[in-house]
């Protein structure tokens, strides 16, 4: 048998071992190629040009390469480890390490490049689907047309050739470093020796949990006013990241083992099958996997966090448009409004109109502000806000000495928290009118032209309003003091009305809410798409890595299953134990990742949108479901192993 035959035979025999490696490869290539094809596709020009999407896409593609290479290197590592016995055998019969390396390389080369081309093919078909999804999310009405891009093809080939070289290098060092003896023992020696829990380990575990909690605590304070300068904010963020990541690592290194040891001790040596399969094996493996699990947790947290934030922005597009423009269309002068109304009449579009007089007044709000405002350039003694009369708002009637504030957004409420009630002063040019501030309402009544993008609006009694109007301070007034809101009665006609609005070429002060929200959606849609793509990649790669790890583990544990089955445990008993084990194996990183991302989102979501719970929970649930698929797959694999164990 010459070397070529040997290679061929090996390939044939090992295909079963390799199928996951092939899958990992095909999947990575497909993903990358799909992405690069999108990047080079002419139909993407519109997206790229419009909002500097090109830079975002480029960054994403670099990140993608990074994830994919780590993933492939990891997969390769598992498979070379599996074949260590065979390599040892070849060495034993007198083959040199270089020759073995050559055999492995050629084998790998064949598999790798076949998978590469399959991957490119899959990726190409896949990218059409993806671009359709993309256009859907960003509301571009275009028929997705894709061309096979040579540029994308060449880039993919180059990138994966480089990754192949890296794989070869790791294989080479792996083979070089092994002695015949250690090659035979590789699987048992990589998992740590079984030792008793030490005091040091306990300490590390506690420190880990403490660090995570500390990070969470600081994150909840991040935008609470304790960190005022940019530098401090940056330091605080780095601190949070560092403390949470290191904490997570320590948690896996010490706490998991420490906690399971406590549980185990309490059983006094009498373990049921669930505990035998889950507790004991997790105890010994979690520690050696600490780094891997930390990476997976961090990556999951990152993916969930980013997805949540961008989905919050996308989801809130409509709401923040309502905040900025309470009516479908907002006009600021009568002339334009009349013109628009006429046009609507002509098209038979029914509408309602709201006209509100708005004046700008300084108020002294020092006594109702909860914290100091040194970080914002606002003077609490004399803050300029819009004031309207209670007559313009239907369901409010104020008494002469009361003021209510409305339209206070979450972002501002973080930086400028208000008390429930208290005395304020309305400062006219000459006169000062003392008022009792009685509460806060959430709805927005006038457009953002008047509110400096989020300051609250004061509603006062008509008499007070008259007094203020007489005593007006001309220097702080806006160009217009009239808000005209036009609401279209039938939602289906908004689109038509919007076209009329756009065709009329009004000045910038007049705003269409529809236009505003769809612009926001386009912007956020692309962001979401890119983040979603990366998030999905993160998800699938980390899921695959955990799955591979479990495959590996199940092979290692096969003898234990044999013993247990001989002792009289049924397949079902064992499988139940495995399910518990997988619940921990997959659940612990997931739950910690969810917690991390929850605190990350909580600390800064108001910078992105107006609604946090629905989008965040949706993202989390979706992520959990997709992630669980890998857990289920691994249980199925275990089932096979257990069945074959006796």
């Amino acid at each position: 048998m010459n070397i070529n035959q040997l290679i061929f035979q090996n390939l044939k025999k090992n295909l079963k071992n390799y199928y996951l490696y092939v899958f990992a490869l095909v999947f990575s290539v497909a993903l990358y190629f799909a992405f690069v094809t999108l990047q080079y596709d002419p139909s993407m020009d519109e997206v790229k040009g419009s909002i500097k999407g090109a830079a975002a896409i480029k960054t994403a593609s670099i990140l993608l390469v990074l994830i994919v290479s780590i993933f492939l290197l990891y997969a390769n590592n598992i498979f070379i480890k599996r074949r260590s016995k065979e390599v040892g055998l070849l060495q034993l019969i007198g083959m040199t390490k270089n020759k073995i390396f050559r055999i492995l390389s050629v084998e790998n080369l064949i598999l790798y490049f076949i998978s590469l081309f399959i991957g490119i093919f899959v990726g190409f078909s896949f990218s059409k689907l993806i671009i359709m999804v993309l256009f859907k999310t960003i509301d571009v009405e275009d028929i997705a047309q894709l061309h096979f891009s040579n540029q994308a093809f060449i880039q993919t080939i180059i990138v994966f050739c480089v990754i192949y070289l890296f794989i070869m290098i790791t294989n080479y060092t792996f083979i070089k470093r092994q002695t015949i003896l250690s090659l035979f023992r590789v699987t048992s020696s990589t998992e740590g020796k079984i030792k008793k829990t030490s005091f040091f380990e306990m300490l590390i575990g506690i420190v880990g949990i403490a660090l995570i909690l500390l990070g969470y605590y600081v994150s909840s304070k991040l935008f609470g006013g304790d960190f005022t300068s940019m530098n401090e904010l940056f330091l605080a963020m780095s601190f949070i990241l560092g403390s949470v990541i290191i904490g997570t690592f320590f948690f896996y290194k010490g706490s998991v083992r420490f906690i399971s040891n406590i549980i185990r001790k309490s059983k006094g040596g009498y373990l049921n099958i669930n505990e035998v399969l889950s507790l004991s094996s997790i105890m010994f493996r979690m520690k050696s996997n600490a780094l891997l699990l930390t990476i997976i947790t961090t990556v999951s947290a990152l993916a969930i966090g980013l997805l949540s934030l961008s989905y919050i922005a996308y989801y809130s597009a409509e709401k923040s448009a309502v905040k900025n423009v309470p009516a479908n269309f907002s006009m600021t002068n009568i002339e334009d409004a009349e013109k628009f109304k006429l046009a609507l009449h002509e098209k038979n579009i029914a509408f309602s109109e709201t006209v509100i007089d708005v004046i700008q007044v300084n108020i002294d709000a020092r006594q109702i502000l909860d914290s100091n405002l040194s970080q914002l350039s606002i003077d609490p003694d004399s803050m300029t806000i819009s004031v309207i009369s209670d007559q313009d708002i239907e369901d409010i009637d104020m008494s002469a000495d009361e003021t209510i504030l409305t339209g206070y957004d979450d972002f501002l409420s973080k930086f400028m928290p208000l008390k429930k009630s208290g005395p304020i002063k309305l400062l006219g040019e000459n006169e000062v009118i003392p008022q009792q501030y009685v509460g806060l309402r959430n709805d927005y009544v006038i457009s953002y032209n008047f509110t400096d993008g989020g300051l609250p609006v004061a509603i006062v009694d008509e008499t007070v309003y008259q007094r203020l109007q007489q005593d007006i301070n001309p220097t702080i007034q806006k160009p217009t003091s009239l808000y005209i809101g036009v609401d279209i009665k039938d939602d289906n006609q908004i689109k038509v009305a919007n076209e009329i609005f756009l065709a009329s070429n009004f000045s910038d002060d007049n705003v269409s809410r529809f236009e505003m929200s769809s612009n926001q959606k386009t912007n956020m849609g692309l962001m979401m798409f890119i983040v979603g793509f990366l998030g999905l990649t993160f998800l699938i790669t980390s899921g695959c890595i955990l799955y591979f790890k479990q495959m590996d583990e199940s092979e290692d544990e096969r003898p234990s299953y044999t013993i247990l089955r001989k002792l009289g445990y049924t397949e079902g008993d064992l499988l139940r134990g495995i399910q518990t084990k997988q619940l921990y194996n997959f659940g612990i990183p997931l739950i910690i990742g969810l917690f991390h991302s929850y605190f990350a989102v909580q600390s800064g979501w108001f910078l992105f949108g107006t609604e946090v719970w629905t989008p965040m929970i949706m993202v989390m649930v979706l992520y959990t479901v997709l992630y669980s698929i890998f857990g289920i797959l691994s249980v199925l694999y275990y089932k096979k192993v257990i069945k074959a164990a006796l």
Partner: protein
Amino acid sequence: MNILEANKIAKSFGNKSNKEEVLKGIDITIKKGEFVSIMGASGSGKTTLLNVLSSIDKVSFGTIKINNLEMTKLKEKQLAEFRKKYLGFIFQEYNLLDTLTVKENILLPLSITKTPKKEANQKFKEVATELGIYDLKDKYPNEISGGQKQRTSAARAFIHEPSIIFADEPTGALDSKSASDLLNKLSDLNQKRNSTIIMVTHDPIAASYCNRVIFIKDGQIYTQLNRGEQERQSFLSDIMKTQGVLGGVHYEH
């Protein structure tokens, strides 16, 4: 009272075109409280016989009754049920779970049958003390010697007081001192607890601790030796003689 009755059991491996008959119709009866050895050259089918008798493998033909219950007709799940109640195992490679302590390993069979914890601890203490491993209870298998591992394995086989204990070359991986220690303990337990032990071995010394030795050749019973009131030494020489005739392999002592 017969605890095990096997009738004309046969076992073959492979498919039709390439069939290999390993067991060719063996009849065995074993009485309660007996300590029986099965001997034979490698390839004679002794381990297959043990696997079949202990329900780990299925027979191709024939019936096996344990406690008057016909095992050959049971489904996989019932067999598992059967194993956990009535059978105990000792293997050459110890077959301990590396991730469990000595005590946890030994208590496994009780945990399957959901024995109350107090009773389990009581039983553990008894059997572990008898086998001299009580002090090792919190150690992991990789921290103890081969002989201690095998005694742990034996304790696990005895703890739930099974009807039959199957031992597959229990002394195969032990040095002679540990081996004789273990065998002494086994025959002690056999007498004290009146438990039935079936042991496969190729070591005549190990076999000499038994009441009866069954020799297997080419998948059939070649002969049987009863110890009766004999001394162990003379029984050993009998066994060695038979073995010499059987395999042509001569032991030098």
